[in-house]
């Protein structure tokens, strides 16, 4: 169930030219700003628009190959799609929505409805089977949309901004559930989003798409460590840690803890975010107000005009952004030992 | 229904006397002076039976030529329709009907000045497509299967007379399409939607070769009598009267004969 795609197409002002693949059991997140062409990629894969050049191959079978005039229409591609805003059929109940895809293929109506019911139960929506989409909450609707897409046992699952329509609180819970549901699906999953947190939680691999071109692919940590474009840097370049907050300390990974400011007296699982610009580097152990200081070793350096990003190993891996001038002045090179400081007041803490 | 076939001559004399009496309101006239004194002027509207369309248009031109200060406007339609219109107050100065029934109705309602004049008669004829492809020779032939017949609606003179003719021929007419007046009925044959229509002899003649005519023998035929009269509510009684007189004059009669009408 491998997806192998080379998409070349022109749509209005968009000039799309991308090559990528997706393996069974992996979630690939297509990340990029609006207008980058992410939804267009999805629509081309789904068979809703044809490509001009290239090919789309799923499981070794060509779905779209202009040079050989191969074209498999959307209804025969066995690809499940979860659309932005879910796009549930308003005139059908949740049950009939999920059963919709099952009914075409020689499956009789009652059998289809029974199977749809099982799916909805699996999604925890047993009491809402007869509800109309307008009566469902954002999170419930999203689960119905997912069940609907999965009910036909597709070979590939595509999701277009699945969390965009949800408010902040719902998004957190749904994102977690989504990870679970996605992991249960055997085939490759391709998810489109503009929110880097989505990428960080859900992605096994990220493809950064800008102006119709892939600017970078890799795991989240690779991206964070070596952003190859300003967009990626701005987006992914934050230092993100998962930990447990108790009192004024967040304990991350290996037992190291960070001092933070806990205004809301939150306790429990959290994300701690430190922007690279808030991280200072010192040749010697600093004294002064920063509560978080430790020693680390420079692993990589990336330059962007007047700025530079320095990634360091240590009790906590971190990326700092400093000026080129500072870089040169301190003669920083891979392997250099430096002290890192981060102010507690500049660490953002969000409940998980 | 009284037959009026004998009365036309009497009616003309009576009408001439009465119109002579009612014509001059301002001027004292002798019959001989009638044409010279008080030249007709102004406009009049003549509501006339559809079968009079061509001949009255011609008479109208001649009348206006003779009396240049007059304007004659025509309103052609089925006699019964025109009668209803006039009774309901439609403006008309002269009424010419294709049967005496409708004129009597109007007189009876008090809408006619004096006594109407019978000025012409007409006979029915079967109109068929040129070349008579369906080989229609008699009224009975028009009822054969495969022949599409149209008649005027029974409420107008030509429709009433047509049904009478069929009765006189001993035939029953099934439900057939109908036209609102004789010209509308005839158009079905000219346009090809019908194979035969029962209209007046003068209509076939006026169609000038677009249709062919099949004569209906006298024993079955019906004579239509055409009276003309001045409408009581006319705003220009003098000119209306002049027109009526013109139609009934020998000049008028000659024109009527040219178009195929019979002498009154």
């Amino acid at each position: 169930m491998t997806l192998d795609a080379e998409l070349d197409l022109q749509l209005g002002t968009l000039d799309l030219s991308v090559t990528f693949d997706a393996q069974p059991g992996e979630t690939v997140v297509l990340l990029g700003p609006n207008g980058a062409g992410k939804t267009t990629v999805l629509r081309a894969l789904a068979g809703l628009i044809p490509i001009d050049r290239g090919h789309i191959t799923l499981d070794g079978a060509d779905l779209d190959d202009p040079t050989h005039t191969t074209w498999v229409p959307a209804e025969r591609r066995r690809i499940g799609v979860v659309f932005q805003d879910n796009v549930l059929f308003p005139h059908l109940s949740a049950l009939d929505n999920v059963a919709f895809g099952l009914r075409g293929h020689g499956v009789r109506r009652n059998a289809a409805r029974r199977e749809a019911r099982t799916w909805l139960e699996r999604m925890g929506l047993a009491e809402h089977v007869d509800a109309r989409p307008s009566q469902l909450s954002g999170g419930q609707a999203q689960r119905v949309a997912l069940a609907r897409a999965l009910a036909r046992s597709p070979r590939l699952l595509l999701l277009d901004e699945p969390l965009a329509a949800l408010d902040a609180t719902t998004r957190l819970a749904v994102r977690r559930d989504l990870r679970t549901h996605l992991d249960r699906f055997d085939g490759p999953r391709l998810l489109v989003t503009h929110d880097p947190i989505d990428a960080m939680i859900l992605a096994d691999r990220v493809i950064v798409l800008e102006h119709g071109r892939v600017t970078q692919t890799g795991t989240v940590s690779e991206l964070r460590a070596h952003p190859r474009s300003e967009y990626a840097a701005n987006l992914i370049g934050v230092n993100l840690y998962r930990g447990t907050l108790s009192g004024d300390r967040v304990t991350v990974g290996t037992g190291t803890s960070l001092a933070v400011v806990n205004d809301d007296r939150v306790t429990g699982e959290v994300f701690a975010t430190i922007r690279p610009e808030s991280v200072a580097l010192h040749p010697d152990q600093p004294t002064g107000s920063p509560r978080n200081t430790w020693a680390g070793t420079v692993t990589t350096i990336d330059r962007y005009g007047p700025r530079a990003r320095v990634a360091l190993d240590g009790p906590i891996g971190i990326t700092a952004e400093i000026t080129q001038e500072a870089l040169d002045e301190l003669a920083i090179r891979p392997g250099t030992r430096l002290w890192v400081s981060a102010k507690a007041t500049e660490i953002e803490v969000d409940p998980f | 229904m009284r037959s009026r076939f004998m009365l036309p001559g009497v009616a003309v004399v009576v009408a001439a006397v009465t119109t002579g009496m009612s014509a001059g309101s301002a001027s004292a006239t002798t019959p001989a002076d009638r044409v010279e004194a008080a030249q007709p002027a102004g406009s009049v509207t003549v509501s006339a039976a559809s079968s009079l369309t061509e001949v009255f248009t011609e008479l109208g031109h001649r009348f206006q030529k003779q009396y240049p200060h007059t304007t004659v406007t025509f309103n052609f339609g089925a006699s019964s329709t025109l009668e209803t219109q006039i009774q309901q107050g439609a403006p008309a100065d002269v009424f010419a009907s294709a049967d005496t029934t409708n004129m009597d109705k109007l007189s009876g309602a008090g809408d006619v000045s004096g006594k109407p004049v019978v000025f012409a008669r007409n006979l029915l004829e079967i109109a068929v497509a040129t070349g008579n492809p369906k080989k229609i020779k008699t009224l009975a032939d028009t009822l054969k299967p495969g022949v599409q017949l149209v008649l005027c609606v029974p409420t107008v003179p030509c429709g009433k007379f047509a049904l009478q003719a069929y009765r006189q021929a001993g035939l029953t007419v099934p439900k057939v399409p109908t036209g609102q007046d004789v010209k509308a009925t005839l158009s079905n044959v000219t346009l090809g939607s019908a194979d035969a229509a029962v209209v007046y002899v003068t209509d076939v003649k006026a169609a000038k070769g677009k249709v062919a005519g099949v004569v209906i023998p006298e024993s079955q035929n019906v004579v239509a009598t055409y009276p003309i009269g001045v409408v009581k509510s006319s705003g220009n009684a003098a000119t209306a009267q002049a027109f009526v007189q013109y139609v009934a004059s020998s000049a008028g009669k000659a024109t009527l004969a040219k178009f195929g009408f019979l002498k009154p």
Partner: protein
Amino acid sequence: MTSRGDGRRALRAHRPPAAACALAALAVGFLVLPLVGLVQRAPWSQMWADLTDPATKDALRLSLECSLAATGLSALLGIPLAWVLARTDFPGRSLTRAVVLLPMVLPPVVGGIALFFAIGPRGLLGQYLDDWFGVRLPFTTLGTIIAETFVAMPFLVITVEAALRSIDRRYEDAASTLGAGRWTVFRRVTLPLIAPSLLAGAALSWARALGEFGATITFAGNLQGKTQTMPLAIFVAFEHDPATAVALSLVLVAISIAVLVGLRDRWFFA
């Protein structure tokens, strides 16, 4: 749902301007006056005789049969046409749409004459119908249905095209990705979504077909039992018996009011 309450509340908050109200009242009067004129002339004593007359029964039966058939035919041909106009792009599409909507603005009698010279006995196409099959459309019920469809179909096409343009295309995309072929998508997704507009369009067509006169009388002609629909019967009656004409007119008015009341706001403004 709460529209009535909202309306009253709105009235309290903002009284409509006096000038608008006066003109609106005038407009209503203008439209209602002819109806009042009819009702006050109703020949109640002879009404029953008029309504049970065989000619009347024929006319009523014909009117209902032909208008329903015309609506059905309009839907059968009009829905695919609306779909093509809404969903495909071909050179001359605007021109096609203008031509298709022409019967809406054309005087009906012009439509009748045009039909006559197209499919009448000596018409462009009609002469072949006659020569080869002996089929002549005037004076047949089929002719009446054709005349009514000609004037009524544009109403359905325009309503359905607007509806097809306004629905979210992604519903159809979603259905495709779920394995539905184009006909299934149309049947199970598109049609249900445009159903209210389709019904409104059908109702409008039906009303138009029911009231059609000019095209019917010029093309199909006047034959009791075959082509003499209510409007024709009323026209014929008016010439020699206005009272009967009023009686028949009131029947049509009653039917039309019943349909309009049944339709309700939401279908007009779907």
